[in-house]
């Protein structure tokens, strides 16, 4: 059934179809309407899920850690300061190998106070051991949640599903909503490997001395390394069942391109139009959408860009002192390769400023005109 719904409603549908047992969340704009929608369904008895009210995002994640250790599927959603407040518990969730799914609606972190979209909140959590998946449209949001539980429960790592504030969260578009009967065989109930059983009490997450700690971290890295293959299997199965798939990255545009433009989130949708127009004018360009940020799809990207001369990347985030975080990761992933394109790192759209087709064209123009970037950080649309 197709419905015209917002990105936040698409999240709610994803959660309902995933048969989540427990939700715990604390309201924060622009996430709030997700848990509002869900809590109303629960309160009216139409959704048989437990909703645990808490006094903070830190507690929300702590509650999910408890519930997940108890062996149930659980969910939370947050944004910006809320995600930052969860930080300690995010480490705990991955360290305890709990397959929790969290939706983060990308919002800038203040000050100055700002409620609009950029990626500084989710990218601040890049080292917490969470898988991160970025979405381009509302359909992808719903589908990614269903996939996220499959991936999380396979590798025993938590997954953060990320969507842009307002551009997706509060904007409606047509979304195909699968039925429960269609989803159930794709997403079977969660079977935990270890689970609290008060009949046979065990100690969980107890101390690991220097003798063993390194090995536990090694296991997390190994699990991350399994993700590309498992995620691909899950995506392929999803495609065969529902006719839609996304991959870790998506390449579009010219087959043999000299220049690549890399984007994530909704900027990709705008880029698709710009690239199509430029190809029409004879420019040799292709686009790459990065969906999966963690684990970083180094291999998948290299396979696509290895013959290219230049690679432009637009970051809607800033790691002050370095530059765009996607650009930084990309450069690091290419460094060991003998043949590698020049990376042009653009920064734009912080705090929700629109990244317009004109700005994207300007970035491509700059990349075409310069053999190498004149600066590490190329500011796009900056009013100097």
């Amino acid at each position, binding site marked *: 059934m197709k419905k015209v719904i917002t990105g936040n409603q698409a999240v709610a549908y994803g959660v309902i179809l995933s048969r989540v047992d427990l939700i715990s969340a604390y309201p924060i704009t622009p996430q709030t309407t997700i848990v509002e929608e869900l809590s109303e369904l629960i309160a009216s008895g139409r959704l048989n899920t437990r909703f645990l009210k808490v006094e903070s995002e830190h507690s929300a994640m702590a509650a999910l850690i408890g519930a997940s250790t108890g062996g149930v599927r659980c969910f939370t959603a947050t944004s910006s300061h809320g995600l930052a407040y969860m930080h300690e518990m995010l480490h705990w969730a991955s360290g305890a190998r709990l397959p929790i799914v969290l939706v983060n609606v990308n919002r800038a972190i203040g000050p100055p106070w700002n409620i609009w979209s950029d990626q500084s909140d989710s990218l601040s959590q890049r080292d917490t051991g969470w898988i991160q998946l970025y979405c381009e449209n509302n359909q992808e949001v719903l589908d990614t949640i269903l996939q996220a539980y499959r991936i999380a429960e396979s590798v025993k790592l938590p997954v953060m599903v990320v969507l842009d504030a307002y551009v997706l969260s509060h904007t409606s578009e047509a979304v195909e909503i699968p039925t429960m009967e269609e989803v159930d065989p794709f997403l079977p109930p969660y079977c935990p490997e270890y689970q609290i059983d008060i009949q046979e009490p065990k100690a969980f997450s107890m101390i690991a001395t220097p003798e063993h700690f390194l*090995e536990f971290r090694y296991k997390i890295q190994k699990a991350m390394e399994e993700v590309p293959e498992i995620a691909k299997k899950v995506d392929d199965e999803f495609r065969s069942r529902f006719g839609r798939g996304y991959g870790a990255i998506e390449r579009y545009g010219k087959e043999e391109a000299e220049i690549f433009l890399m984007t994530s989130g909704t900027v990709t949708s705008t880029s698709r139009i710009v690239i199509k127009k430029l190809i029409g004018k004879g420019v040799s360009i292709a686009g790459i959408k990065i969906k999966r940020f963690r684990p970083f799809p180094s291999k998948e990207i290299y396979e696509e860009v290895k013959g290219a001369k230049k690679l432009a990347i637009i970051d809607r985030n800033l790691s002050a002192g370095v530059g765009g975080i996607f650009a930084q990761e990309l450069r690091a992933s290419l460094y060991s390769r003998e043949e590698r394109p020049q990376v042009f790192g653009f920064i734009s759209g912080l705090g929700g400023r629109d990244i317009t087709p004109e700005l994207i064209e300007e970035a491509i123009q700059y990349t075409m005109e310069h053999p190498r970037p004149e600066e590490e950080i190329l500011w796009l649309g900056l009013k100097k």
Partner: protein
Amino acid sequence: MSNLIHFKGASEMPMISISLGDMDWNKTGAWRTQRPFYDDKTPPCSTTCPAGNDIVGFILKITQGDFEGAWNLIKQENPFPGICGRVCFHPCESKCNRRDYDEPIAIHALERFVSDFSSNLNRKIEKVSGVRKEKIAIIGSGPAGMSCAYHLARLHYDVTVFESSPLAGGMLRIGIPSYRLPKEVLDREISNIEALGVEIRTGTPFGENLKLDGLEDYQAIFIATGAHRSRALEIPGEKGKSVFSGLDLLRKINPGKKIKLGDKVAIIGGGNTAIDVARSAIRLGKKATILYRRSKEEMPAFEDEVVEAIEEGVEIRYLVSPIRIQQKDSLKRLECLRMELGEKDESGRRRPVPIPDSNFFIEADSMIIAAGEEIEVSFLPKGMEKKEGIVLTQRNGSTGIKGIFAGGDLTSNQRTVAHAIGSGKKAALAIDCYLKGMDSEGAIRQILIGEGPSISIFRHLHPEERTMNPHVVTFEELNTDYFEPSKRHRESKGLVKKRIKGFGEVTSTFTEGIALEEAERCFGCGTCNGCENCYVFCPDASVVKTEEILSHQVDYDFCKGCGICFSECPRGAISLKEEAR
């Protein structure tokens, strides 16, 4: 037991740091420095109830929809829920902890609901008296006498009640107009007591046909003859025609007799009798004015009654004291002095002092004197000590004479229905102990509600039941995070226009829905209602359930004494004590 494993490498290790065996051997309870335990405590309402009702208990039954269970629980202590629910001054509500949060629970209205609901159940009451051979005589069928008879019957004694009037009920029948207490309710609750096997001999006045030496067959006697003599004003003219005592007038109105009453009625006094007379006069189509020598604050009548009287058109004149009644034809003139308030007297109220030369006159067709009631002493046996207008008794109701006990208005200046019920109950317990050769004072100490003075006869009958800590729960001891503000429900009242047309009941009984909502408001101070907060919050899974029900046991092998159960209990039903070191 604990066994540290040295893994050779990651391939041997589990995914997470987890104990491979179970941890039952690790008795973490050994870390505990304080110990939580289930400890039901006394709610302030029950300890304040002179009749000793298990208020939190019966309200909890209402919330479970078990109205009959609620009725059974009240009846353990008090045979008169329908009466108390209507006419008690409900001191329980003034001590209700919810008063400090929003508004107290309408306990009286819930009690009335339970009684009225159960009266529709057509229950058959079994005779229980007369199993024991001892016979007990009770003089007076008011609330004290009938309460004593009720509890003695439940203790299986053979009980006979002697009543001077043609109908049982004492002051309940004579003194309380039917717009406050319908006769059906009174008859219903008295006949429930009779059904237990209590015999009531009406038309048998003590001191006339019935004398103490005629009661030799009875092994114990309880005298509860009340206070039925109107106190005189000691002013000239009060013995004149058309000057009635308040009680006499009520006695005539209540059985529905025709009485002669002038159009303008002046009532002298500030107690409940004065209010009852004035409101009755209004219902007979008269104009009623109350004259009271002190001010509103000192008035002994219940506040709700005063409010309703004023609603119905009763005029109250304060700081007025009559000094002489003069008669001219049918019209009477009352000479009065204006008063002012002076120093506090022995009752703690400010004494009214006449203002010199402030004399003025009030005209009325009928004068009613309702300045309080006194006990009749002429027929009391010799050897009974009397002081300041009451018969002196011990706490257990015993008089100076062996085997003779006394209670109710006769022995107390706290002349309320609830106090009378309580004193009858205490006497029943004392008589039981007396006949069994036991120490009744000791027995009373065992079953005090909180620090007393009320007692629970249920605990006397069921010593095996869980005991209750005498500590009275304070508002500060509750965790009000678990309660939401809500308005107290009020019984609906008839329109004044309709009320004053007759003697029909002024207020209506709660509906089931309203009763449930009001009962839900109860904090349940000190009483576990199985909310399971402790079970949910215990981080050590040490709150034990058996067959899905809280067992009120803590697994001390693993309880670390964190105290979360104690602090998250909404109603103070869990206590913490320090562990012995």
